[in-house]
């Protein structure tokens, strides 16, 4: 462990940063071997940042994003979220955090194939307990915002990749989250579509949302205002407005 001094200092840093990682380690058991996906990562993110997390495959960038998105828990170290240590939070509390504060955009979209576009977008609203009318109203607005309002009754399989990612972004925005996490959001898209998706994310950042994006493409990372370079589970380089 890094010692109690760090732990005591962390909450103070967290007042400035929305998210603060302190010496985060993530270990996986692969067969007999232990693999350190993250080997002690520390940094903080201020509200309104647009951060690109970069690195070769296997560098631990997706693991980092999953931990930031509370989809995974660190093996060791601390992750402070608005001044609360994630390790202290119950599973329900983490679910609620995702439900109200986070929006996810995945490389492979992760839409539910049996649901229509409208139902997929409405899913976070459903779990928030909104009435059908409220859900419907919000879905129409979101779909118009990302440009899929003419596809609401279609299934994901009937859409192009770009359209699917727009639906996924609409779903990520449904709960009006302050933080959006995007894991290779353009990984399965062509260049033109990638650009459209990136300008959408840039607009969302301009609205004041924090965006954390994993990518390995230099030109995609160019849309971000700051970047972290990972190698073998450690931070290699930090550029831009990031607290280390």
């Amino acid at each position: 462990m890094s010692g109690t001094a760090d732990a005591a200092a962390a909450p103070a840093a967290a007042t400035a940063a929305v998210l603060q990682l302190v010496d985060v380690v993530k270990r996986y058991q692969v067969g007999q071997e232990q693999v350190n996906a993250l080997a002690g990562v520390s940094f903080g993110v201020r509200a309104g940042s647009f951060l690109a997390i970069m690195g070769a495959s296997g560098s631990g960038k997706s693991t980092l994003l999953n931990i930031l998105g509370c989809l995974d828990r660190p093996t060791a170290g601390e992750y402070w979220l608005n001044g609360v240590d994630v390790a202290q939070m119950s599973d329900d509390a983490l679910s609620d955090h995702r439900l109200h504060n986070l929006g996810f955009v995945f490389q492979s979209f992760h839409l539910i194939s049996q649901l229509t576009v409208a139902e997929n977008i409405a899913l976070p609203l459903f779990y928030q307990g909104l009435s059908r009318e409220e859900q419907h109203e919000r879905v129409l607005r979101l779909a118009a915002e990302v440009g899929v309002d003419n596809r609401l009754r279609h299934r994901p399989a009937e859409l192009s990749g770009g359209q699917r990612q727009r639906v996924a972004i609409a779903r990520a925005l449904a709960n009006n989250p302050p933080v959006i996490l995007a894991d290779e959001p353009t990984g399965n898209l062509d260049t033109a579509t990638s650009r459209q998706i990136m300008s959408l994310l840039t607009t969302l950042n301009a609205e004041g949302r924090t965006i954390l994006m994993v990518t390995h493409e230099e030109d995609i990372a160019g849309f971000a205002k700051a970047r972290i370079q990972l190698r073998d589970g450690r931070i290699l380089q930090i550029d831009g407005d990031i607290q280390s």
Partner: protein
Amino acid sequence: MTGLQILPLMLMGLTDILRHKLRSFLTMLGVVFGVGSVVAMLAVGEGASQQALDAIRKLGSQNIILSSVKPPEAGAEGVQRSSRMNNYGLLYADETRILETVPGVVQTVPARFMRKQGILGSQMLELRVVGTTARWFEVVSRPLLAGRLLTPRDEVGRATVCVLTESGARKLLAGRHTIGQTLRLGSTFFRVVGIVKNAEGTGGMQTPDRDTDVYIPMKTGIERFGEIDMQMSASSRSMERVELSQIIVEMRATTDVEPGMQAIEAMLRRFHKKEDYRIDVPLALLREAEATKRRFNGVLGSIAAISLLVGGIGIMNIMLASVTERTQEIGIRRAIGARRRHIVLQFLVETCVLSVGGGIIGLVLGSVIPLLITHLAGMPTVIRPYSLILAFSISAGIGIVFGLYPARRAAQLDPVEALRRD
């Protein structure tokens, strides 16, 4: 601010069943056949068991046979005082008393036996003449081969009619054409009205009928032949008066036989000074019936266990497969912010509806199949309530458990783990 209520979650579970039409149909089908096959197989097994027990019951396993016996000391006296009238045996009153006092008695059949020379056409045969009532044929139930049985009207009218057994008829060279012809018994002429099958393989099992019986109405017998049986030999003449040679007491069930026998014995001992009667229970039949019942209980138990196992494994597989397939969906829902219990509740509703719905359809199917089997193959089938309850509760239970288990397991995973599965 956890605004999500239970009702919308349950509604989502229901709409989800409709969304996955094929998968829901296949899952339900698994439960339908699981339940249906258990019910149908048990119905066939129960039918066979019932048939076997009925067959034994037809032989008379729930009968008690009372016979008149000449008391030993009286017999010795009879030899000395050759012309004395010898009174012994079962009385008409005994039959009435049994019918009125012994619990569990269905009916009683009185019979008087006499040995007579029978003459039909040119054939002559020593016959056992059984003077009895129409009820004889209910208790000693044998297939009627030709003509008709004795009826209560024959009794009332003291008709001189008789029914032959198959072996007796064969020895007298009688057949279907004999119906309506005249059989001479002693000095009386009887019209042959019917031929019944007699017990096969006599000897092994105790049965009330014999090879060469001829059945006549009891009252006709008393009227024509009297109640006194006279036996003459070179040195002496003995006369016996026996009211009834035999009373067959039919009990409601084989379990009533032993207590019934004790009650009858106690009653007869009170009214008979001498021991001029014998009580027989076709014990072999009784034991056979019990053994058969035990055997079939074993068979039914194995059928139930095996078909529940097979049905259960089928249901388990399809539930495990169809829910495990949705692990990624569960991951997506969790990533978006669904709590574990939201996932579990949604799948609980889905699996409950599929299992219970499939179970109910299965019960209907399982009840129709035995009817078809009976109708088409002529095999007897019996559906017992326990088989319906057993099949439904175990199958639906397995469906719910193995539908819920993988959903719960997926909900327990870190969302990132669940998302990775596809």
